[in-house]
């Protein structure tokens, strides 16, 4: 028990240390920072959505600086090819004149990947990330290359510019643990942003966490027990997004074509465990599940024609589910 308590203490200390370090550069958006860290510690990936100028790319750059991890940035464009992400075999010629194929690793071979404006690339290129995000490996020809751990993909997309973009396919979206929305900063936050970026001394961050420590934190997260009633609540929460299940609410039956999948339950439980650890608890509560429900499921709910015609926000449907779904029940 002492070791477990020490792990909890260490986890909290490291987590807050990263938060504070990122907070030196990024103003506001604490929920987004926390979400990115949760995604990192849960072994998932995050999709950042926001209008231009909100600091999405800056946030990921700062995270890469704080974490002692390899960082690559991929600017997604319509002419980007999968090989530009994964890598390609290049013909090399030796001094003897012999030629051979050598695999030139692409930018995917890093620990933190910034897929900037991921929806500007074609679905073919977007799908190049599928294996890497799910299997943490890359297959080229007959060779499979394992990616270094921890591996984190942070993708950004602009919700306003729809012309010339390719919405992410459902399979791609389901790979993201969280979909985080960056809100426009408040007046106070804007003052802070101006103060930090228009002066001579720009804020500097230091590396506070390495890859091994992150892997330890991931192990700590998975050690947290969860009681079956709480797990059942998370499952019922996901089932409530499916219109054909009895847990579905009226909004679900009206606007949803297909609900969240099993990866959503995994995301809810893992994220709930991280919230429990950060709250100095060794058990997961229903509130932990509720707190991560929106970022974990908003991109997994597919609207039907009526929902899209009415421009229904999936968050509205999820909030209705949270409000109407009964709490944990005896199993």
């Amino acid at each position: 028990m002492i070791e477990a308590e020490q792990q909890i203490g260490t986890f909290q200390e490291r987590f807050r240390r990263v938060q504070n370090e990122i907070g030196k550069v990024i103003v506001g958006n604490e929920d987004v920072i926390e979400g990115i860290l949760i995604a990192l510690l849960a072994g998932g990936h995050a999709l950042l959505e926001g209008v231009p100028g909100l600091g999405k790319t800056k946030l990921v750059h700062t995270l890469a600086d704080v974490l002692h991890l390899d960082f690559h940035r991929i600017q997604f464009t319509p002419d980007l090819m999968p090989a530009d992400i994964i890598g390609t075999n290049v013909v090399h010629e030796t001094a003897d004149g012999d030629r051979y194929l050598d695999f030139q690793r692409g930018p995917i071979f890093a620990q933190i990947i910034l897929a900037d404006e991921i929806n500007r690339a074609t679905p073919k290129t977007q799908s190049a990330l599928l294996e890497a995000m799910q299997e943490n490996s890359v297959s080229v020809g007959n060779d499979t290359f394992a990616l270094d751990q921890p591996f984190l993909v942070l993708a950004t997309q602009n919700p306003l510019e729809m012309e010339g973009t390719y919405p992410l396919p459902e399979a791609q979206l389901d790979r993201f643990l969280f979909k985080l929305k960056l809100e426009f900063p408040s007046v106070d936050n804007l003052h802070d942003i101006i103060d930090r970026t228009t002066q001579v001394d720009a804020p500097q961050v230091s590396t506070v966490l390495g890859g091994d420590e992150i892997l330890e934190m991931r192990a700590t997260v998975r050690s947290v027990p969860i009681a079956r009633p709480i797990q059942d609540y998370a499952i019922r929460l996901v089932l409530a997004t499916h219109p054909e299940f009895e847990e579905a609410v009226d909004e679900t039956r009206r606007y949803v074509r297909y609900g969240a999948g099993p990866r959503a339950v995994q995301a809810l439980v893992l994220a709930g465990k991280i919230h429990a650890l950060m709250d100095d608890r060794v058990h997961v509560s229903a509130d932990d599940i509720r707190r991560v429900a929106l970022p974990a499921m908003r991109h997994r709910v597919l609207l039907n024609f009526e929902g899209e015609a009415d421009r229904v926000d999936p968050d509205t449907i999820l909030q209705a589910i949270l409000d109407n779904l009964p709490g944990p029940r005896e199993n």
Partner: protein
Amino acid sequence: MSVRPSVTLLLRALQARVRSNALKQEIVDALLLTGAIGMLLAGWNATMPVSMGLAWAWLLPVLVMVAIRAALRMRMAFPLWKAARSADEGDALQDEMTSAYWFERHPEEGEWVDLHLSRAQETAAGLDPRRIVPSQRPERMGATAGCLVGALAFVLLPVPRVFEPMVDRLSDLAAELAQPESDDLVAELQETTDREDDEFEDPERQDRLMLPEPDEQESGGQNALEEQEQEGDSEAQPEDPEGSFMEAEEGDQGEQDGDPQEMQVDNPEELPESEGEQEPDPNESQQEGQGESTEESGQTLPAGEEVFLQQGGEEIEQMELGEEEVGHATREGGEELELELGELETLEVQLQRELLAAEELPEDPEAPEEEEEKEELVTKAEDSRIDFREVSRPDEAALQELLQSESVPWEYRQIVLAYFKALRERDNQKDEEEGRRP
């Protein structure tokens, strides 16, 4: 693990407190129900006596049902799972008790589970069950107290039995109806009705009541028809029988001042000797009157009509007609009617009331003369302007008055109704016979 009983102990303490609150509420509900029923029974007993057996027959099943319901609700009301949920929600424990209760029931090996249960033990030890589940005051206390006080008030205080006089009055009425006198009167009235029916069915009597034969009508048949029309006119005048009776009484008083009791004779035994001598034998005098009426006046009064007038309270007027218009024969027929009146004891009270009412009226010296003129006018068939069919039945008014009179007991009214019904049938039969006449 030593930590597990602690959580269970807390949950059982919470369970006990919740059940205690529920038990108090059940007791209050039972008292409320008992008080309400008790007040109902006590109030019932205060107004009308209720036997204890009936009271317990109401109370016992209700009490048994309440006890069974309370036991079932206490048994099923609050499981430990709900206690854990209430602890978490009551003290914002973030589902710690819920999770710990589940891990107690489903043990898992692991350092983290032990740590979780250990922390849950510490949390449970620091919880106050009284704070999580405070002692609740049962609801509906005021209503319960009111019902119990009301029941006690009905039992202890001298509440007047408001319905008791009504019950006594009904009892007295029942006893009065059951008295022998009433039975005698009923039997007497019934006997009278039967006798009237017998007489009506008696062939000899019917011979006397029958209309004259066609040969007799040659001499007096036309007069008889005219007489009937005149009688119809005379009957048509008094819409109110009492009023017509009073007119006739006034006329009689003009002639019979010396002997007013003559009009009150219903029973021959009550007649003075002077009058009693005139009719020593009712049958004989009846036969004589019948013969004289045929011989002297040549007119025949329908006997049924006479009886009808007697029974409808119009016998006085008939007597007047007999004296003034029909002649001596009619007068003797009136004597015969008096004999028959004497037998109709059932209408004695009604007749006496009418006579007394007539006596109280002021006498008009000119009234007899006017009455004679009227009677003379209506007696002559050629002067009558009233259609025979428009003549109302005097017995209808008499019947209604008699039935509406409070002095006639309820049981008698059916007899009276039957009596008048028999009269009506007989009149109808007579009308049919007259209608077949040429």
